[in-house]
């Protein structure tokens, strides 16, 4: 599998799409748009997993793809929208860092991940894997960047889940990775728990807004 073959091209395309949507996530200011972009990223991730399942002939990856699609592209975005509606939040996200600056930082991070991954995987036979890992690392770093630059709890959760999309992208991209299904399920459980945590804690009505700066009152002694 090398450059120019359809297998590679499609995988590359899907991985690139996931990364692109990370940029979109960083760029978006409005919460509902962020949720939509996240849903699309989930769908693309599912497609990437399915395609990898097809070219590697690994049936387990289809399960991963299905889980990713159902949870990331449908269920979680829906739940978040529902939450958004119930709380009647103002839909704009306050950012700690300007969008322009975030995007510049994001490009730098992608550059870093390429600089890191490509030389050290030089021994790896498969160009696709190397490419995939670079993309996955970029998605991971951008997810973290998003968590840092956003003040809002929901966008932080989305950042974390987008980060986790990067992980699944990496896991499915490595040939013959065992336990992918289990790992992705476990990761999913974590995410669901996070979301559930947000929901529960919102319903408890402890806090007026989702601005996590209010969550920084715990200074302790």
């Amino acid at each position: 599998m090398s450059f120019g073959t359809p297998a590679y091209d499609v995988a590359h395309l899907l991985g690139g799409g996931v990364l692109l949507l990370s940029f979109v996530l960083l760029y978006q200011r409005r919460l509902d748009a962020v949720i939509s972009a996240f849903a699309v990223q989930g769908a693309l991730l599912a497609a990437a997993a399915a395609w990898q399942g097809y070219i590697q002939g690994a049936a387990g990856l289809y399960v991963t793809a299905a889980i990713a699609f159902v949870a990331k592209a449908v269920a979680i975005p829906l739940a978040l929208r529902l939450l958004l509606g119930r709380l009647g939040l103002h839909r704009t996200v306050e950012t700690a860092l300007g969008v322009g600056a975030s995007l510049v930082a994001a490009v730098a991070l992608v550059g870093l991940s390429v600089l890191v991954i490509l030389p050290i995987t030089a021994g790896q036979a498969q160009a696709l894997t190397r490419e995939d890992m670079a993309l996955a690392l970029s998605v991971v770093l951008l997810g973290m960047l998003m968590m840092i630059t956003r003040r809002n709890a929901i966008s932080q959760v989305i950042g974390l889940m987008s980060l986790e999309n990067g992980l699944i992208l990496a896991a499915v991209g490595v040939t013959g990775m065992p336990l992918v299904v289990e790992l992705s399920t476990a990761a999913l459980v974590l995410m669901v728990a996070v979301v559930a945590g947000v929901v529960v804690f919102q319903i408890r009505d402890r806090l007026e807004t989702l601005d996590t700066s209010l969550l920084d009152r715990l200074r302790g002694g």
Partner: protein
Amino acid sequence: MELHLPWLIVFLPWGGAVVLALMPHGDGQRGRLPAAVNVGVAAASLVLALVVMGEEFGQQGWTRTDALNLPFVLVGAVIGLTTACFSFATVAAERFDDLRARAYHAAFQVFMGAQYLALLSDNLGVMWVAIEIATLASVLMVAVHGTAAAVEAAWKFFILCGVGIALALFGTILLYLAAQPVVGTGDPGLSWGALVAVASRCDPGVLSLAFVFLLVGYGTKAGLAPLHSWLPDAEAEGPLPINAVLSGLLLNAALFAVLRAKAIVGAHPGALPPGPLLVAFGLLSLLLAAFALWRRRDARRLLAWSSIEHMGLATFAFGIGGPAASLAGLLHMLGHSLVKSAAFFAVGAAAHLKGSQKIADIGGLATSHPGLGWALALAMAALAGLPPFTLFLSEFSMVVATAASQPWLLLPLGLGLLVAGGALVTAMQRLCLGEPTPDRPAEGAFALPGGLLWASIPTWLHLVLAALLALAAPAGLAALLRDGARMVG
């Protein structure tokens, strides 16, 4: 998946968790039954751990028993049992409603099972899953009171450890990527035993990258500075008994994962040497915590910062490397678990008695409750590195090993130890000596026959164990830990 003996240690608590989640938790007297079941399950786990100690070591499917993990399993089981006993005596004072009580007990046993699994797993993926489950269970325990502060602490814990755990998964994938060309696809690519064996033939670059992710990922969970932000908040909230397992077991499990990674990466001479990184993280944690300790006003936060300090010390020892320093690191982890949980028992009991966990509100404990107060004083002296406890032995050995290989590192190490020791004994004197502050006991705390003995006996037991481990460890256990140290490298 074949069910091996180690899995029993994991599934026994998990089964217990299911039972506890389903059991009705009434108020008052009836509420004691689940707590007693909790103790029973913990005791059974200890018995099982002893049985496993007697079995032949080796890999069994996804699990393995070896010289490295069995001491941790054993100490974990002991601390699990003492914590369950302490919880038995104090759970009434936590004033849980039925749902929260179920959640608390179930989460405790889920946590215990998960940390056993994290220690016993051979498969790095399984280990990751186990640590994640342990994280979720501990988050639940931290948040179980549902107060604003608890939720906030749990949220911070969640987010920071969520990121950490994600990075650790990335590192695990990278490890597989490195091993895959050598061992082929499938399970062996994630098996620690297989990876250690072939590490020298793997791609060093990928191994280095994997180690960075594993270190930052699991290091977050182990509370290494600068990844430690969640730890003091999480320790300060939640029911009092859980501190013992959070500090004593969760941090160990995470650092243990780092050790497994170090053993793999360290086996390849061309990979990024893990030593300097660990030394840097260790010293940073030590120094940061040492100075932060001087500003503490909350007893639980104080002990949490001290956990950061001690995890830093253990990490430093592993970073120095070699059999002597690694043995020191292992002993430090074990000793820290025992002593820190002892200190948390005493502080927890004091917080119940005085109705506050502020240092200023807990004064003169040695006068008002001598058994408890002097145990706390000794435990904190032990944390400050005074003999005859394990931490003294481990700090001595790590300093000697450092002097042999990197003498100039003695300067920051000594500075950190001095500053931290000074802060700990200062706080210890405030807590234990002087005029006692008035008691404002929480209703239901230590209402059982025996009263405070439920807290002081576990505390003293841990102290005695820590002293015996240092000075009179049976030759078998000593040999086991020496083997373990050689595995870490």
